[in-house]
């Protein structure tokens, strides 16, 4: 009988810090864990990929924690309500999301990293920045705002052509989400057209961000396993500090 493998990889320490001044009083060198971010539009397969990564990481002996958008104790409910009514202007919505992010950063991400967990983020500041950029917010303003954010060890952007994305979204829910279609922007009265146009703008915003933040673009329009294989390879390298 084959002997079970018990030798585990201990992730190297991160030497990465905050994008800006960070959170008052937090020393990046105390954060032993790793930060992995998966970005991509709804329907790009983010959640499936993350679930599979968690499975793999835990079997490999790593403790994990997951975070995402609109999950903070502080403002998630209010944010949900505000969005339902579509009553907030762009700066307000932007700051509301930033508050949600900062709350999770301080109460979930940082403590987990101190304890040596691997944090998997189902979207991070880049989605928030891209959405705001599409709505005309200034990139320098956004960079200053998200100076509180920690630099991840790896960021994967699951890229999918808007035409493929619309197929996936419709196959999943048989309708298109108001916000994921950017209906608040008034690009088109037609939901389908608006979705395509908005997702094209989002892709352009991500490309712009990719230049400053240097994340890995992964072709999301492939079988789930193939994409996961690529993510695992990259994450393995990150854990070993390569």
């Amino acid at each position, binding site marked *: 009988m084959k002997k079970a493998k018990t030798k585990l990889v201990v992730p190297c320490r991160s030497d990465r810090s905050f994008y*800006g*001044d960070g*959170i*008052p*009083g937090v020393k990046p060198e105390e954060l032993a864990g790793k930060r992995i971010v998966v970005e991509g539009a709804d329907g790009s397969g983010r959640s499936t990929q993350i679930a599979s990564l968690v499975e793999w990481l835990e079997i490999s002996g790593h403790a994990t924690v997951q975070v995402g958008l609109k999950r903070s*104790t*502080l*403002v998630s*409910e*209010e944010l949900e*309500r*505000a969005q339902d009514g579509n*009553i*907030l*202007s*762009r*700066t*307000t919505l*932007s*700051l*509301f999301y*930033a*508050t949600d992010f*900062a*709350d999770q950063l*301080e*109460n979930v991400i940082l403590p987990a990293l101190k304890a040596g967990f691997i944090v998997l983020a189902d979207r991070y500041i880049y989605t928030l920045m891209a959405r705001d950029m599409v709505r005309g*917010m*200034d990139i*320098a*303003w956004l960079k*200053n*705002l998200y*100076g*509180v954010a920690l630099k991840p060890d790896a960021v994967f952007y699951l890229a999918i052509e808007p035409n493929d994305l619309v197929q996936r979204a419709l196959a999943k829910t048989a309708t298109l989400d108001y916000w994921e279609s950017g209906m608040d922007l008034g690009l088109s009265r037609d939901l389908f057209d608006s979705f395509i146009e908005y997702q094209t703008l989002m892709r352009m915003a991500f490309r712009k961000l990719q230049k400053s933040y240097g994340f890995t673009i992964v072709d999301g329009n492939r079988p789930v396993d193939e994409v996961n294989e690529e993510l695992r390879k990259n994450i393995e390298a990150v854990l070993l500090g390569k």
Partner: protein
Amino acid sequence: MASAKNIELPGQRTSLKRNEMKTFAELGFPGRLIAVEGLDGSGKSTQIYLLKRWLEAEGVKVYFSEWNSSEIVKSATSKGKKRELLSPTTFSLIHATDFADRYERHLLPLLRAGYVVLCDRYVFTAYARDVVRGCPPTWVRGIYSFAALPDITFFFKADLEVSLNRILDGRPKLKFFEAGMDLRLSTDPYESFRIFQGRILDQYLAMSSEFDFVTIDANHRVETQQATVRQLVTHRVDFDQFRRNSPLPLPPPVRRNPSTKSKPAFEEPEEDSAA
């Protein structure tokens, strides 16, 4: 009234340098914004209330906006405060969210429509308070850079002891954040409040000349202060440009506690924005 074409809408990041930041008048807005700043207990809310009453009586289109009063954001803020969930960063961001909501939904359209907007606390409150809490000054100013500067900012400067006593005499139970207890300055709320307010005062004084604060000696009698305020407003604002044409004034903002509605603002509102 200026047409929309002449108005330069403030960008998100105009500049962080005072000489490159603009007031609403400088941006070509037909309306004017008057802000009051000062410590809790400096009497600023009383003064702006009296200013509002006078302007209304003069037939001027007036709107009053209070710090930390956006309906949708407030529920999150009070939850955060009650359960002590707020860190300096989230404290700062949630107040910025509140401000942005009032700014974009009320202040900007009203100023476009030629109102005189009165603000009980403006961005300077955040500049002072968030920095005392340890947030980097450039970060805080950067966040609020979407807002234009007030056309007049009155700073009510009372002796620290006078402001402290006004608050501490009337309202012995201090709230956690109001007393700055999150800063761990002292285990005694009163002592903590004193140190905290002292530091905020230092911040106000440091930015007073940078932002052309009109300093009012808040140790004087209510009427004396109000006379100075009215004199300056008359001097700087031509009422004829802001006359109300419609017989109906804008309804007052909805208040949480109806019992305080009719009460004149002889003292700070119960839950000052402050905390």
